[in-house]
């Protein structure tokens, strides 16, 4: 990714065909998500698979629609580790959420 020498400001990669393909994939993934909701899968499996699919969709949007695939890899490295880290860190809230659940007054 990083060795796209021609990657200057207004010569971005991607073709109309590739964008359309991505769009179709996104729609299909959304349809899968909706199908999962229709099937009423157990909550935890549902949550995991929905988040997995959403992350894939987000990655496709970022990579193709937002052209990040065609930028230097260093831009990706500058931006995303810190965001992902912060979001993962916020999961530390969750033990307290279940604590608030179990310790609530009867």
């Amino acid at each position, binding site marked *: 990714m990083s060795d796209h*020498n021609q*990657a*200057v*400001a*207004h*010569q*971005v990669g*991607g073709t*109309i065909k590739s*964008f*359309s393909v991505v*769009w179709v994939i*996104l*729609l299909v993934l*959304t349809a899968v*998500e*909706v199908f*999962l*909701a*229709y099937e*009423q899968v157990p*909550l935890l499996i*549902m*949550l995991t698979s*929905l*988040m997995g*699919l*959403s992350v894939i*969709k*987000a990655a496709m*949007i*970022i990579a*193709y*629609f*937002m*052209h990040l695939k065609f*930028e*230097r890899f*260093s*831009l990706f490295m*500058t*931006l*995303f580790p*810190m*965001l992902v880290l*912060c*979001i993962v860190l*916020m*999961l530390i*809230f*969750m033990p*307290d*959420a*279940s604590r*608030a*659940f179990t310790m*609530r007054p009867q």
Partner: protein
Amino acid sequence: MSDVKAATMDSLWTGGGSPYAIGSKKFGMWLFIISDALTFSAMLMAYTYCRVSTPDWPTPFHFSPGIVFSSIMTFCLLSSSLTMVMAVHAMNHGNRRATVAWILATIGGGVAFVVLHATEWHTLIVEEHVTISSNPFGSPLFGATFFGLTGLHMTHVIIGVIYLSIIAFAVGRGKFNAEDVEVSGLYWHFVDLVWMFIFPLVYLLSAKV
């Protein structure tokens, strides 16, 4: 931009140009997206926290019409992202008329989303009596998180529509360059991307058949 172009690979971080070989505006928009993504993440975390800690979380969305309706909204937003990519593509090839047309199509998608969303809100508030502070199906936090999250997102969509209108107007009059269109596109795709998390977390996980 000429300097940016002139910056060669060997001078990646040694100064004299962007180490990413992109304009500052684009980088600035990316930084904004990172921080805004974290704001949304914090909201979604708050939503998850509330949901985990609440015993009577409701599942008020029937598959039809609720989920089908929001799926159509998702379709509008996703398709508007495609038209936005087309607009950026056209602008990169110097085709301003096509660019304006594609941006207008994007605005159309955004407006459709807002209208559908407003309809849904209206139904929820007026017919099902779910408001930001109350909810007949269970915990009032459902209304709070639902309207809080979707409201913040809808604000972003509306801002995006205004932003794109300005861009379309200026591009039509021969102002602004490809970078400006691309930067507005980044914002629009981000708004789309956020919806890709709100839709499953708020709607699909609150669905009952």
